[in-house]
Structure formats: structure tokens, C-alpha cells
């Protein structure tokens, strides 16, 4: 097993729409260990959120997992019963979302919503969870008694995200998935929320998947980075390696497009646009935009191989041995 907490193997997810079948995930490979912090980065629509929903077991109509599997602590999620799946979500994996205010139920008080999570995680009655609710709300820096009695529309975005964090961490989950937790918030609030998350996760020892398209946030928060492009993980390495010596042409392009302070050079974008996932390019989905594209790139998707110790990449530029093996 590659990761002792989570191992996503060749996950393929499609969505059936009127426009056609969207091939959202095209064999995603992803793994992580306990207490690790993994950043999942890539452009909008590259499959970051779909990956996270698959890990939660929340892919629903019109979406479908057509092949591959997610192993959580070595257990296949495809083989889990409904109850096991509910139990896993309630106790072992939590998630926080992009739009905190709309992610909370508008007709229920915050206190109740947090209490619900606690009661689910600890198998106690909702009423018995209230002391714990106040503790959690305090932990995330909210005026606990007052906030517990408020409704979501009475909170600011930052406060709502704090409440979401309280809810998500109340089960002390093995894995916390944060799906762009700050992109709907003001810049100053963003920093506060990331700091809070950093502090709490360090204390409680949760593993985190941070989904973001903000390279700066990812660099600061994560130990490992996985870069996604059009439904594939194309590169995975430690944060230092990704930023110091990126291997995949897409990652290189992505980093060139990030502005740096004190640099007057013009930003270089990646030519072309993100492919339409109803009719994705054959082979490597990045090849039409890739400056190093070769013939075989358009024929077969390159496998994710370990090009250097701990540094995985899915690109034919690094697969001489891999290809020999395949032949």
C-alpha cells in the first residue's frame, strides 16, 4: 500500500448530462499517510472537487464511479455497506466547503448543526452534545454561547467558516478535506482562517487534503502537493520539490503563471485552453498544450511513475524505463 491512510487507485468518474458524458476523472491516483497535509491544486474544472467527493463517497446521480476504488485505512469504499459509509463520514472523514454560509442549513441554529455532528461522531443524543458544542465553538474563536443560538444568515462569511470548521473537527476525524475553504472570503479573513486551521490540525493531528488553486496557500500549508490536470493527477511530490524542480510541463507552466514580488518579468501563461471533458484529447490530456509533446503522447495516457525518490510524474519525458517495461 502506498499510503496508510488513503489510497485512491485509478479512479474514473463520469457525469451523464444532456451534452454528453463528462469524463471528469480519468484514472486518478492519489495517496497519503496519517497526519500528512496534501495540497490538491489545479485549474477550475480539473476534478479536484470531484476527487474529494469520491473520497467522501458522495458521488451521486448523474455522476458515477465507473472503475477504480478508494481505500481508506486499507478498506475498499466500493465494498462498504451504506451504514459503514455513513459511519466513516460521521467519524473518520470530515469536509469543509467553499461557500460556508450556503453550506449551513438556513433554518437551523448553528448550535444544533454542530451538535448534530458531535452526536453522530460520539453516538450520543443531540441534547447531550451541547457542552461539547460550546467547547468547539470556543476553540475556533467564536463567542460560543451567542453563536450557538444564531442562524447562518446572521453570521459573516468568516464566522460561518469557523463554525464549519468547528463542525468538521468535532469528530476529530482522521482526514479533513478542505475544499477551497477560503476562496469565498476576504483576503484578511483568508489568512485568519488558514492560521486557525493550521493551529487546530497541528494540535489534533488530523491529516488534511487542501483543495485550492492558490499556489501560495498550498505552499505555506502543505507537506505534499498533487497537481491535477483535466481529470488526472499529473505530478505528486513534496512541496519543496514541486516548487523547486517541477517535472511535468503543466506544473512548470502553472508556476510560471504565478506572479512573484520583486520580479518585473512578464507572466507567461500556458497556451491553449482547458479541454472539454465531454470530448477530451486522447492519450495525455495535456498534449495539445504541451511544448514537449511527442507522437506517443496523443496515443496513450502516460502512467504515474516515480521519476525520483518520492517524486511522481505522469509524463513520457521521464518514462524510458517505464516504457521498456510496458513493452
Amino acid at each position, binding site marked *: 500500500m502506498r499510503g496508510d491512510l488513503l489510497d485512491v487507485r485509478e479512479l474514473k468518474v463520469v457525469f451523464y448530462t444532456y451534452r454528453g458524458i463528462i469524463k471528469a476523472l480519468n484514472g486518478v491516483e492519489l495517496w497519503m499517510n496519517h497526519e500528512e497535509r496534501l495540497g490538491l491544486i489545479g485549474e477550475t474544472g480539473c476534478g479536484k472537487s470531484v476527487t474529494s467527493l469520491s473520497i467522501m463517497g458522495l458521488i451521486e446521480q448523474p455522476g458515477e464511479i465507473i472503475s477504480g476504488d478508494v481505500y481508506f485505512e486499507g478498506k475498499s469504499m466500493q465494498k462498504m455497506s451504506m451504514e459503514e459509509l455513513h459511519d466513516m463520514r460521521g467519524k473518520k472523514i470530515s469536509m469543509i466547503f467553499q461557500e460556508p454560509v*450556503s453550506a449551513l442549513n438556513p433554518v437551523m441554529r448553528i448550535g444544533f448543526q454542530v451538535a448534530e455532528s458531535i452526536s453522530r461522531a460520539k453516538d450520543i443524543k443531540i441534547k447531550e452534545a451541547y457542552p461539547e458544542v460550546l467547547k468547539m465553538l470556543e476553540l475556533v474563536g467564536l463567542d460560543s454561547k451567542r453563536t450557538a443560538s444564531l*442562524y447562518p444568515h446572521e453570521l459573516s462569511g468568516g464566522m460561518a467558516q469557523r463554525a464549519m470548521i468547528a463542525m468538521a473537527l468535532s469528530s476529530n476525524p482522521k482526514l479533513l478535506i478542505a475544499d477551497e475553504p477560503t476562496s469565498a472570503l476576504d483576503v484578511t479573513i483568508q489568512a485568519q482562517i488558514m492560521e486557525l486551521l493550521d493551529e487546530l490540525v497541528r494540535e489534533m493531528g488530523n491529516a488534511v487534503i487542501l483543495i485550492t488553486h492558490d499556489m501560495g496557500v498550498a505552499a505555506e500549508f502543505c507537506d505534499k502537493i498533487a497537481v491535477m490536470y483535466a481529470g488526472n493527477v499529473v505530478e505528486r511530490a513534496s512541496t519543496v520539490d514541486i516548487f523547486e524542480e517541477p517535472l511535468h510541463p503543466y506544473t512548470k507552466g502553472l508556476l510560471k503563471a504565478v506572479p512573484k514580488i520583486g520580479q518585473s518579468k512578464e507572466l507567461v501563461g500556458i497556451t491553449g485552453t482547458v479541454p472539454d471533458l465531454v470530448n477530451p484529447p486522447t492519450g495525455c490530456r495535456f498534449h495539445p498544450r504541451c511544448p514537449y509533446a511527442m507522437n506517443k503522447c496523443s496515443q496513450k495516457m502516460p502512467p504515474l511513475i516515480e521519476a525520483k525518490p518520492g517524486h511522481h510524474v505522469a509524463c513520457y519525458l521521464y518514462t524510458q524505463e517505464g516504457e521498456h517495461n510496458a513493452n
Partner: protein
Amino acid sequence: MGRYVLRRLLLMVLVLFGVSVIVFFIVHVIPADPVGALLGGNAPPQLVDQMKHQLGLDKPIWAQFGDYMLGILHGNLGISLKSNRPVTQDIAEYFPATLELAIFSIIISVALGVVLGILSAVYRNSWVDHFSRIFSILGVSMPVFWTGLILLLIFYYILGWLPGTGQLSLFTIPPHRITGMLLLDSILTGNWEAFRDGLAHIILPAAVLGYSATASIARITRASMLDVLRQDFIRTAKAKGLSGRVVIYRHALKNALIPVVTLIGLTFGSLLEGAVLTETIFGWPGLGRYIVNALLVLDYPAIMGGTLFIALMYSLANLIVDLTYAVLDPRMRI
């Protein structure tokens, strides 16, 4: 909250004023002759004049309107030409039967409509959904008098399972009148035979009256439920590890019911008004039939009084709905 209710009540007075103006002028503008209807075509002219004077019909229309409005302010809706009693007294006698019928059918429609709506949203495009769709299309498109006659034909005439018309069978002893609502009075006086008989009599008219309401409630519940199930907070609820049942009944339903409650209020108003046809078909001694009879003999005060009263009930139902709204949706707190 208190101020809100007060404002709404004042607005209601305005609405009722508008309704009474419209009803008054419609009734007085139609070229019909109530005195002729009352006395017959061959009455001697003096008698006709005397009658006109007695009813105030010889005055100019503005004066008549003024008299009528003044009467309303004193709680006096005039004297019915047919029953020769104050219209208010007639309404007090006939309205409870209508109210009972409306309450009974709204209970049936809400229970059935909400359940059908939830089921067809949760099991979208399954046979439940298709059944509910066909059931609803029939419900909103079939006129009440037709459904009524067909159901009478099937359940009364062919199958003989349910009684035909009226509130009670001929030989059932009615309960002592307390509220005027037969079922309630039967319970209060412990007259179980009348209760059973009354129940058998109310099923068909209530079903007919409530059918289209059931249909629209089912459709709105479905649409609203589908909309809510797509929301972010439903995903959060699922991510918390809650079971499907808890997600639907605890998290989705309360949100989904908000538009349904509005519909229920409007529907209740229209049930009172729809009772006109249903009551005529089923010989139900309620306000609807009273108004129909009043129309047939051009009983002006009864027509106006009955209509105004129904408008009052309609407005009250809407006020109650808006207050319920505030309870269901904290964003609406007044």
C-alpha cells in the same frame, strides 16, 4: 410582531372595503329585478313601489351604497330577501358546515400531497413519480363538478360503498348543535352513531373538493424538494454522515415546506370558494350552497354578505400563512 399583525389587519380592512365596493356594484349593475323575482311578474304596481321603498331600492345608487357601508360598519349585512333573517345569522348557520368540509379536505390534501411530493422528489422518475404526475395532472385539469359526479356514480350508485348526498342519512339523529360542525358536535355530545354516519358522508365531498389542492400541493412539494436537495447544506448534512432519512426529513423538509405553506394558505381560501360547486353537487348545507340559492332568487344582501364573508376568511387564511412563514424561516423574522 405585534406591529406587523396590526399593519396586516389594517391592510385587510382596505382589501375588504375594495371587495365590498366591487361586489356591491356588480350586483347592482346587472339588469335584474329583485323585486320582480320576489313578488312575481304580475304584482300590482303599488306593491312593487312599496317593496322597492322598503328595500331602499328607490334611492339613488350612491345612497344605497352609503347605507350598505354604514350597515357593515355596524356588523349588519342586511336582511336576506329570501329567509327574511339577518344575513349574518344565515352565515352563522351555514358557514360551520363549509368550514368543516374545508378543514377535512385540507387535512386530506396536505397529508396526501406532501407525502406524494416527497416520494416523487426522492424517487424521481420512478413509478411513484409517474403515478403522482398523472394523478396531479388529472387533479388540476378535471373540473370539480365532473369529478364529483363521477365519484358519486362509482362509490354511491354502482358500488354503494358510500352515502350519496347531505351531511347525514335520513334516519340518523343529528347531534345537539354546539359549534355547527357536525362531526365536532357529535364528538362533543358523544353521539357516535352520528359521527360515523357524518364521516361516511363527508369523505366524498372532501375528496372531490381537495383533489385539485392535493395535486398542486404534490407538485409544489416535489419541485421545492428537488430544489432543496441540490443545495450545498444537503451535501454538508450528508458529509456529516447522517442517514438519507435524516437528511430528507430533518434537513430538507423544513426548507422545502416553506413555499408549500404559502400554497396551503391560498388553497384553503380557494377551498372555501370551491365549496360553491361541491356543496351544490353533494347537497351540503353550507355557505356555498347558500350563495348559489341566493343567486338563483337574486337575494342581493345574501350574495353580497356571503361573498364578503368568504373574502374575509381568505384574507385571514393568508395572514395566518404569513405568520407561519416567519416561524418556519428564520430569515423572515418580523
